[in-house]
């Protein structure tokens, strides 16, 4: 019995790796052959030319990687919001994207109503807390023990409610993030690197630093505090958590509030780079390939996944994009995710499924 159940998994994995290895070798062989015979052929352009460019202009490469890194950090932040809620309640929170927009809009809206910038941040945190409590009371509590898909649909409901509510309160037109008032740096630093100039936006540096601090704080919170341990326990088994006296309602409020804080910070950072509008919500869906890559249950996974997707996207766009007329950036992430689904469905760092048979 147990043997039969245990056998297929390792076999499939082994086959998968063998298969991917064979494909890789075949591709490399074809590339070498193609390049040998044809200096302007397709294979040359795909496999040789981009790398030559990278070597010839390292400053451009550095610039591309840096830009990828920054958008990767922002993807990671959004993915982090998803992971938090998925871990603790097993719900894929479709509303995370709109929560980013809603938090940013609230912040800007409050500022426009004459509230000082930093007070507005605190008030926005308050609003996110109220939102967390409301969602727990109105949506999660009545739906407890329903199938996951129902909770997932409920987050759709939350999404459309927040879109409508946000538009009613703050209007639908894009707004300017109050970056100056929050003392976020402006301008760029130009670095002389590899005989060229690499320009780093200060706001990007700030985003990377703030994101790193927040991620470290969250990781410590999860690993070493009583509540963090309880959060992981709930993620593991709702029933067992209930039986040792962990209050699910309390945990859910904490988790949604934490996701709200992450959403606010993401909103500020993202808003400062472009502007605050509902279009951001679509960008937030980029978190999906990030999650597939990194694993739905892993905070380090969200970070590494975000960085890989961010850098991969920018590099793909810059070096390979022209080959097919550009526009790679919008779908490359999903393409990478698809590849991962084929060979490592739990993601890079996702929880291994422990099952005793």
């Amino acid at each position: 019995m147990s043997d039969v159940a245990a056998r297929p998994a390792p076999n499939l994995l082994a086959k998968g790796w063998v298969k991917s290895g064979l494909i890789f070798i075949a591709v490399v062989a074809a590339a070498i052959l193609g390049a040998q015979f044809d200096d302007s052929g397709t294979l040359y352009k795909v496999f040789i030319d981009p790398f030559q460019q990278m070597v010839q202009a390292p400053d451009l490469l550095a610039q591309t990687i840096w830009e990828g890194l920054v958008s990767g950090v922002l993807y990671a932040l959004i993915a982090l919001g998803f992971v938090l809620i998925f871990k603790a309640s097993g719900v894929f929170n479709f509303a995370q994207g709109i929560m980013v927009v809603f938090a940013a809009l609230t912040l800007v809206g409050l500022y426009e109503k004459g509230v000082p910038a930093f007070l507005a941040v605190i008030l926005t945190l308050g609003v996110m807390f109220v939102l967390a409590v409301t969602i727990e009371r109105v949506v999660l509590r009545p739906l407890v023990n329903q199938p996951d898909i129902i909770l997932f649909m409920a987050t759709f409901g939350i999404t459309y409610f927040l879109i409508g509510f946000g538009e009613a309160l703050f209007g639908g037109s894009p707004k300017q993030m109050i970056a100056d008032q929050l003392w976020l740096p402006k301008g760029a630093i130009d670095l002389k690197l590899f005989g060229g100039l690499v320009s780093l936006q200060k706001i990007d540096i700030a985003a990377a630093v703030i994101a790193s601090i927040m991620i470290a704080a969250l990781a410590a919170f999860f690993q070493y505090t009583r509540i963090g341990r309880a959060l992981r326990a709930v993620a593991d088994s709702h029933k067992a958590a209930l039986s040792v006296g962990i209050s699910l309602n309390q945990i859910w409020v904490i988790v949604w509030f934490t996701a709200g804080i992450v959403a606010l910070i993401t909103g500020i950072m993202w808003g400062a780079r472009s502007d605050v509008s509902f279009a951001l919500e679509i960008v937030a869906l980029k978190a999906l390939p990030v999650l597939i890559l990194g694993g739905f249950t892993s905070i380090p996974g969200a970070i590494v996944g975000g960085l890989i997707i961010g850098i991969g996207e920018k590099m793909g766009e810059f070096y390979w994009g022209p080959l097919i007329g550009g526009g790679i950036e919008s779908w490359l992430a999903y393409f990478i995710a698809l590849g991962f689904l084929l060979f490592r469905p739990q993601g890079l760092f996702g929880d291994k499924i422990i099952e005793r048979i």
Partner: protein
Amino acid sequence: MSIATLETPNTSAATDNILSLNNIEVIYDHVILVLKGVSLHVPRKGIVAILGANGAGKTTTLKAISNLLKAERGEVTKGSIVFEGERVDKMSPNELVRRGCIQVMEGRHCFGHLSIEENLLTGAFTRRDGNAAIKRDLEKIYELFPRLKQRRTSQAGYTSGGEQQMCAVGRAMMSKPKMILLDEPSMGLAPQIVEEIFEIVRRLNAEDGVSFLVAEQNTNMALRYATYGYIMETGRVVMDGEAAMLRENEDVKEFYLGVAEGNKKSFREVKSYKRRKRWLS
């Protein structure tokens, strides 16, 4: 063990009982009637066993007390549950654990991705008496279960069934309970491990004065350690009495201990006999 536990617990002395169920009825999903009026009493510092076959309602009874029923769409529709002189039928598991009544669920339910030590620490979630006290109790658990100390850093999902059961009991102990509802501690474990776990139960009962309500299919083992037993069948208590008395009872011997009297009966005869008995009780 005091003499108090040797008296029949369901006579008058209500103040002596840490837990009383009075004629409770449980309905799942608004339609399925599972418990049809169960009454039982656990004396302070006693070990009481609920015995019975699959589907008799043992687990439901325990879950009705700990109120984990709500998470399974079950509901106590009649009767009352009194713990420490307080009605607890509408209380959340969280509040009950705070008051000192905790359940160890059937099938262990350790947190597979947490280490053994983290598992034990989650048991202290409801406590407010500071880290030093929690640390002290953790050491006590390790002293009780040396095996857990060896495996403190390994993920609970990768430990053996016996270790998981010890972990589950230890985790419950970390909440400083006055009473533990223990559901099928013997399930899927080697007889030796079962014995070890029941020895721990006895020790906790004697040293820390923790009361136990144990649901068991392993009638033999349960009646050796319990002082009082209830036998359930299809949602009713069909017999109860001192453990010693139950051990000697001919029917119990035949149905639950597997010791037949005289000539062997066929399965059919046993079944019909059982049915008659049920109508009588």
